[in-house]
């Protein structure tokens, strides 16, 4: 090949060895290299030299932490690292069953407590009604009708035994912070507490019965007020009904 044609290629060899020759020139040189032994020899030298340039930099050690990081990516480190908890289907099913049992148990306890509360209320209700029935069967019992502001009912009064039984319909329900309180009303307007009661939401009527330590015949009437939970020493809330003896 004439030197004049050969020169442009041989001049591009250093840049080609560095990987810096533009694509078009690189392609032309590669074609030339297929048939030119002297240019291939020249390229061999420049490539070796360019590799020498990679090492012709003063060594610099990386930080020690890099070796540890690299080590942590090797298979033995990955095997030693804690594995995430993986459950088999059997374990999952067992855990699910235990969870369901715990929930059922908690529900049963809650239901049992609810039933016990209902039983206590019904027991009280039954006792109250039995007292009322006993009073009804007694010859000297007074029966007084109640009809105040939509609340109706009956008051049974046994002055010989100082027993009182109150049956009231349509009593409005109360929040837990409030309670009904029954008062005996004296001739001078004084009030003596007979007791507290709460309407039973599951029943259409409410009964309250008590045998008082007071002599009922000394009183002229009976009233019911709404008081704070726990009751009051004298009436403070709304008066719900009043019955005169």
């Amino acid at each position, binding site marked *: 090949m004439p030197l004049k044609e050969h020169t442009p290629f041989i001049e591009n060899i250093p840049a080609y060895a560095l990987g810096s020759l533009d694509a078009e020139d690189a392609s032309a040189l590669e074609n030339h290299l297929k048939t030119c032994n002297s240019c291939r020899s020249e390229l061999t030298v420049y490539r*070796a030299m360019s590799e020498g340039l990679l090492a012709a*930099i003063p060594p610099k050690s990386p930080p020690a932490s890099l070796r540890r990081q690299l080590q942590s990516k090797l298979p033995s480190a990955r095997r030693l690292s804690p594995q995430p908890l993986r459950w088999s289907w059997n374990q999952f099913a067992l855990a699910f069953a235990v969870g369901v049992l715990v929930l059922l148990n908690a529900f049963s306890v809650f239901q049992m407590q609810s039933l016990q509360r209902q039983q206590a209320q019904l027991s009280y209700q039954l006792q109250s009604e039995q007292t009322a029935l006993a009073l009804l069967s007694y010859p000297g019992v007074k029966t007084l009708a109640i009809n105040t502001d939509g609340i109706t009912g009956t008051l049974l009064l046994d002055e010989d035994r100082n027993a009182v039984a109150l049956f009231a319909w349509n009593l409005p329900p109360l929040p837990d912070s409030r309670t009904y309180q029954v008062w005996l009303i004296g001739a001078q307007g004084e009030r003596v507490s007979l007791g507290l009661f709460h309407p039973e939401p599951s029943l259409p009527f409410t009964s309250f019965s008590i045998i008082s330590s007071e002599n009922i015949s000394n009183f002229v009437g009976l009233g019911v007020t709404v008081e704070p939970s726990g009751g009051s020493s004298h009436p403070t809330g709304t008066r719900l009904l009043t019955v005169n003896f």
Partner: protein
Amino acid sequence: MKDVFYFHRLMKYTPAQFSGWVEYNGYMSDLEDAKLAAQVTQGDEKAFLALYDRYSSRVHALTLRILNDPMMAEEATQDTFLKLWNRAHLYLAERGSLLPWLLTIARRVALDRLRLEARRPLLSDADDPDEKWQSIPDGNTLSDEHRWRSLHFAVQSLSAEHRQVIELAYYQGLSQSEISETLGWPLGTVKTRLRAAMQQLRREWDR
């Protein structure tokens, strides 16, 4: 896919590319590297760490020179050795020594990272003091070290313009057209200066 591409490029460059390294580390050291690389292929972590201990300072110096950022250089160094771990079977000892193969990977990893980060090359000289050359401990590598040291000083003795084109072409991976655009020099000037710089380095290389 990118890795495969790089390794094809590497294979394309061999054996001529590695032929300049026949003397590197001496015959015994090359045998040792080849044996360690073969053990890495079998999953031998101790062999892998031995190669890391032997060459990490070389790889790290190169990645730091290219990236000029300690954090990125550490990542590139780590990536380079992970490639060695995963691709050791692609290294063929009969085609050349391990270090140039590893440094060629490191250069490509670092340049790839540079492109990904869209960083433009910094036109600074190497900031490593020449005194560090004194810390090379391996007696087997003294002849190669001498050659690299000479090449290093040859680069340092180039004129500023010549050193700049070598820096941008090789350590920043720019083509001649890109160098022309970056420095605002005519393309012909870039070609002339690059050729002249390489010829000057060759005189030192051939000595």
